[in-house]
């Protein structure tokens, strides 16, 4: 019997394909896209201001609310942070990923891998809280600054409006640092994978044709690593856009998109507005990907 099933599948590859892909596609279709569709539908409902009930009829009223100054402020704050975190992560991750892919061998290589991946083994909330302690006014970081007599540097950084605050753990800079730390592995690994796929002979060919190392880097290494950078930036950018734990734990009381969504669907009971707000990061991501595509980031794929 088993043999006959196997023979049947061997003779009808379409059937085996359907058997293999069916379950995950069903899951993707119903649970994933279905939830997304429900979200989209909800975002076109609105709350009746007198009764507080959800009115289940199509209107753009909820979307209009997105354009209130307070909400625009949230979008701007979140997007700027996402860009800042992404750029910083790319800058920090690239040299490390480059070293891992090109030079590190044997033990050093495994240690670096472990160093990048190990933080992902522990709960991310725990790590965020530990950063709250590190960044606190009585925390190790400000202690170190004053111990080496650079307390005034920290003070002056914290006094910059928009960036600083009463302490690092209550500042936008603190949020930025924690975001950067938490998402960094997601930037390192794709860049490292992309660089690993660049054969050494390409770099030799570039040198052979007269390009000094700097030029080889710009004309060969960087363009070929770009898909990895973009892949990493999709992680860091979208994760920052949607996160509500880091801005809720570190920094002042100003809201990020994720926090606002949480608040609207929870305490405020305004599910349509929460739904409409989640559409915003999706649109921002779509815009970002289109831009990356224009830039030619996917040409080398």
């Amino acid at each position, binding site marked *: 019997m088993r043999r006959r099933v196997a023979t049947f599948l061997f003779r009808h590859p379409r059937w085996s394909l359907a058997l293999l892909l069916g379950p995950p596609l069903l899951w993707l279709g119903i649970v994933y896209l279905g939830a997304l569709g429900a979200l989209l539908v909800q975002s076109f409902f609105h709350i009746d201001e007198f009764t507080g009930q959800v009115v289940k009829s199509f209107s753009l009223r909820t979307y209009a609310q997105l354009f209130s100054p307070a909400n625009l402020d949230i979008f701007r704050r979140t997007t700027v942070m996402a860009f800042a975190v992404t750029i910083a992560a790319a800058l920090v991750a690239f040299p490390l990923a480059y070293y891992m892919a090109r030079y590190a061998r044997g033990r050093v290589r495994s240690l670096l891998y472990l160093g990048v991946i190990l933080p992902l083994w522990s709960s991310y909330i725990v790590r965020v809280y530990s950063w709250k302690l590190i960044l606190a006014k009585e925390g190790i970081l400000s202690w170190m600054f004053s111990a080496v007599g650079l307390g005034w540097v920290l003070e002056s950084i914290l006094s910059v409006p928009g960036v600083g605050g009463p302490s690092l753990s209550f500042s936008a800079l603190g949020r930025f640092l924690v975001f950067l730390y938490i998402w960094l592995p997601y930037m390192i690994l794709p860049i490292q994978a992309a660089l690993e796929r660049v054969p050494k002979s390409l770099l030799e060919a570039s040198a*052979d*044709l007269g390009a000094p190392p700097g030029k080889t880097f710009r004309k060969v290494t960087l363009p070929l690593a770009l898909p990895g950078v973009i892949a990493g930036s999709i992680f860091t950018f979208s994760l920052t856009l949607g996160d509500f734990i880091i801005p809720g734990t570190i920094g002042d009381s100003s809201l990020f998109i994720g926090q606002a969504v949480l608040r609207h669907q929870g305490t405020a009971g305004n599910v349509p507005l929460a739904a409409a707000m989640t559409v915003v990061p999706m649109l921002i991501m779509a815009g970002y990907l289109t831009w990356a595509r224009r830039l030619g980031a996917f040409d080398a794929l």
Partner: protein
Amino acid sequence: MSAAAVRFVEVLRHYGDVRAVDGVSLEIADGEFFSMLGPSGSGKTTCLRMLAGFERPTAGRVELHGRDVTDLPPYERDVNTVFQDYALFPHLTVAENVAYGLTIKKVARPEIRRRVDEALDLVRLPGYGARKPGQLSGGQRQRVALARAQINRPRVLVLDEPLGALDLKLRQQMQTELKGIQRQVGITFLFVTHDQEEALAMSDRLAVFNQGRIEQVGTPAEVYERPRTVFVAGFVGTTNLLLGALAERLTGTAGPAAIRPERIRMLAPDAVPGADEAGAAGLIREAVYLGMHTRYSVELDGGGELGVVAQNLDLDAADAASAHGRRVQLAWERSAVRPLVG
């Protein structure tokens, strides 16, 4: 007489205990098509990489047209390379790949366009400029790599087993083309290969490498007809190696010697070898009909075996099949037996 295009002087390259290149001295003349022939791991590719500048010799000197380039990085050497895996930049078009060297040199755009077109004509790929390397066949990629490598008009072009990945027919076609292109551009070609037929067919001269050393340098005919060492005799073409007792009996000396199977004539059992000839009698143990010729294995009466190749001038497959077990007299010119060095 100008300086040699390429000169290796007592070059060593060791990796820890491994002696990849173990004392190579070599001169290649300007405009020569020179091959480095040897099995994998014999040091030929390492020599090429030291010439291109990807590796530095542990000791010794590499000179290009009389100038010591041992310590120069690849981008400051007037050498270009066709890589074994072609190493075409996947994110650039064919034209951009070919233009790469000129772009680096900041040559003016119209000039680049003109020379890229010329180069693509040279390798018979006109109109392929807009494609990506991924859209090309192996043979086409090989041509693009060649066009790209010669566009800087280097004085020496090195080719690292460039035909290894191609199928037989394409390889033979490319051999002829490469030779033609070399004549056309007049650049010194240094060709690395493990394929002895390829080396014989294309080179003006060749060096046979073994275990990091050069066993013999010479024209294809010299290397084939007068192999110097046992290794060369065995690696270049097929040969009958005469050692010990067999050598003693057939040549009168104990030293190793070789005779090519096509140099041995097969006669009727009662025939007598000529005046300048030596001979031996034996029994045909095996006959393999190969179309153009037949390969025999003859067991000699006093022990030992000789391979004989005879052209099928008036013999057909049936004759070859019936040859098995027939007695024959073998004969060869004494001068066809080449004494060898260990």
